[in-house]
């Protein structure tokens, strides 16, 4: 599928993620034991045969750069095309201020957009946990002869005030878009992933630049729903949306359900990520472990239940971990007891410590701290 080009918005951070996004933006939030959120969209595109992807970044993208590198782990390190990181381009008339909306971001990279080799472009956010059949979305877009196809779901995954909702007529054509309402209306929750032709994209970008319009949905789509044929592609599989620490905890625990894992990790559409060359996980003679998702490279000598362990986590003898998300390199000391906690990278929980949050209010322990 070399007719599709990917543009991923990777500059946004939700403020309610607090400590978790202090050193990174939402796209590089670790999730699911070995992934960063960006891996899901990158993999959805790569698995659909997309070979050229632009990643629009702005601030706080060091950890993202470190993660994606040359794009090699997604087979995106190519002589022609492949992965391109698109940082803000500062000129005399455009100072390096924050993007006011995703159209603003597209205007910022318009010279890159003009050089796209493919006929169609998919615009997507990089902070959803979803394994989307993107090839199918393009096929649908072509078969319906739409100008724009937006992916929506009948489920309710996000907080209404952070989401958009699509109203459609009986043919599936979008008649209205509710943007960040206080309560969720009828219709489909938009995943804000859309496919359109390169030429239409350039037209919209030019027009929006000329009129200082900075939101794609509000500024470019909403006023044109009468002129353009905008349709929806419905995807009802699992989507993780991360607006707050609580969401993050809930979406992590969702992974302990077989159906959720079946939606996110299935044969033929692997979620690729940065290779770390870890050995297998070692369970000691007195270890106990059930109902958990455990990445490679862990050393578990204590007990683990209902938890997500990232690569290289150590649970020392006698320690008990339950209902936790322990990111890469976390060490839980001897006889320590941790529950309902999210430990960011390289946290050290001392021997005999007892730490306990609540399901409705998990404790988030910042990166590199010793408790």
């Amino acid at each position, binding site marked *: 599928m070399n007719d599709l080009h990917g543009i991923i918005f990777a500059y946004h951070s939700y403020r309610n993620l607090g400590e978790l996004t202090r050193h990174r933006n939402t796209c590089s939030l670790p999730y699911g034991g070995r992934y960063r959120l960006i891996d899901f969209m990158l993999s959805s595109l790569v698995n659909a045969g997309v070979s050229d992807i632009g990643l629009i970044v702005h601030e706080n993208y060091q950890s993202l750069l470190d993660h994606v590198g040359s794009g090699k782990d997604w087979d995106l390190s190519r002589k022609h095309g492949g992965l391109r990181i698109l940082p803000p381009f500062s000129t005399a008339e455009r100072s390096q201020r924050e993007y006011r909306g995703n159209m603003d971001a597209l205007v910022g990279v318009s010279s890159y957009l003009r050089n796209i080799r493919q006929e169609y472009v998919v615009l997507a956010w990089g902070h959803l946990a979803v394994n989307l059949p993107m090839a199918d979305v393009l096929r649908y877009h072509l078969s319906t002869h739409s100008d724009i196809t937006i992916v929506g779901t009948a489920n309710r995954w996000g907080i209404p005030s952070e989401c958009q909702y699509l109203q459609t007529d009986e043919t599936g054509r979008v008649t209205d878009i509710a943007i960040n309402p206080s309560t969720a209306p009828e219709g489909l929750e938009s995943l804000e992933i859309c496919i359109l032709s390169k030429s239409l994209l350039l037209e919209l970008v030019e027009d929006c630049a000329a009129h200082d319009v900075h939101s794609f949905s509000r500024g470019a789509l909403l006023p044109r729903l009468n002129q353009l044929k905008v349709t929806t592609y419905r995807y009802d599989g699992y989507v993780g949306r991360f607006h707050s620490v609580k969401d993050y905890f809930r979406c992590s625990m969702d992974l302990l359900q077989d159906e959720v894992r079946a939606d996110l990790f299935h044969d033929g559409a692997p979620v690729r990520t940065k290779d770390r060359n870890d*050995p297998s996980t070692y369970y000691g003679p007195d270890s106990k472990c059930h109902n958990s998702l455990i990445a490679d490279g862990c050393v578990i000598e204590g007990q683990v239940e209902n938890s997500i362990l990232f690569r290289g986590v150590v649970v020392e003898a006698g320690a008990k971990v339950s209902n936790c998300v322990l990111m890469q390199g976390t060490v839980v000391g001897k006889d320590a007891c941790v529950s309902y906690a999210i430990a960011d990278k390289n946290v050290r929980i001392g021997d005999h410590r007892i730490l306990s949050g609540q399901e409705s209010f998990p404790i988030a322990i910042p990166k590199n701290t010793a408790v």
Partner: protein
Amino acid sequence: MKKECVAMLLAGGQGSRLYALTSHVAKPAVPFGGKYRIIDFPLSNCVNSGIDTVGVLTQYRPLELNSYIGSGQPWDLDRADGGVHILPPYMREGDQGTWYKGTANAIYQNIGFLDMYNPEYVVILSGDHIYKMDYSLMVDHHKKVSAACTISVLEVTMEEAKRFGIMNVDADDIIFEFEEKPPQPKSNLASMGIYVFTWSKLREYLIADEADPTSSNDFGKNIIPNMLAAGEKMAAYRFQGYWKDVGTIDSLWDANMDMLAPRSSIDLYDPSWPIYARTPVTPPHVTGPDSKVSHCLVTGGCAVYGTVENSILFHSVTVEEGARVRYSILMPGATVKAGAVVEYSIIAENAVIEQNARVGTPPDGTDPDWGVAVVAGGVTVGEQAIVTAHAMVRDNVKGGDRV
């Protein structure tokens, strides 16, 4: 471009004593230690020792090994200058070419490859041992004593010495005599099959050996004795640490089980000497609500819903509810269905143990024929079938049958 040191890894052997496990792959490609194949150990040792040019000599069933090594990227051996090269035997004008006749002949046939890099030293390695070793220290020793050949040796017990090639050395560890499997060993220094040669010397002896029609073109049988006889300086280099030959079913099982005692064997978690591997993309492994997992290695893509103890699970292994796996090695993609029991066994890639089947039995100390049971790759053992200890299952077993 000239290199100081090039490694040649002999990976053409069939490994016939691994029986069904090597019916489709060469021995160096046999899975080991949860995430690896045997060849990852010498390859990673090369990279960690600063050797960036490695020739891998293949012959028997090379397909899987070739695709596994690929560009060499997982080992950082995809280099513009040097890197890893697969070296199969090839046709030539005139003599038409031959298969590799022996270990020495394999190197002889690749003199052209070595001349391309014109190294000072060549390290000869084999693809059937599990160990961590800094070859650069051995090369340093070789230079320091100005040897023509340096042979890495391991101190074994006098009883074990009868099964090895034994080096008899003087006070400076210079070899004066080599004995293959001596009934009355004079020393306990066993050859590990790791050699450093000064390339110009080895080149001479390879050419002379090839001209001798009676030679079996083997390092241990011909090149080493010939060099000794000619009075070349041959040094022994004492190695200390974990080293295991994995050429038989029992030793392969043993060495895998050693990985469950990381403090006394090889520490795979030591960041200063990583063992690299090419690994498929798999999600983290999952343990089910009623699973029990203890004293194991478990790898990405596994789903454990039953009980697993003292075992090695490679990637994408499934152990269903109520199934029990003990003291066993489950290679990539193996499935143990509900209620099945697998003990003291090696289950090869993508084999399926159906519901309530039983594979292997614990040793009871009375049966002299007891051994580890092996189920070959892709084989299905039917419902309620029984595979007895020491069985070597190459074909599907029907439900209820006993083999």
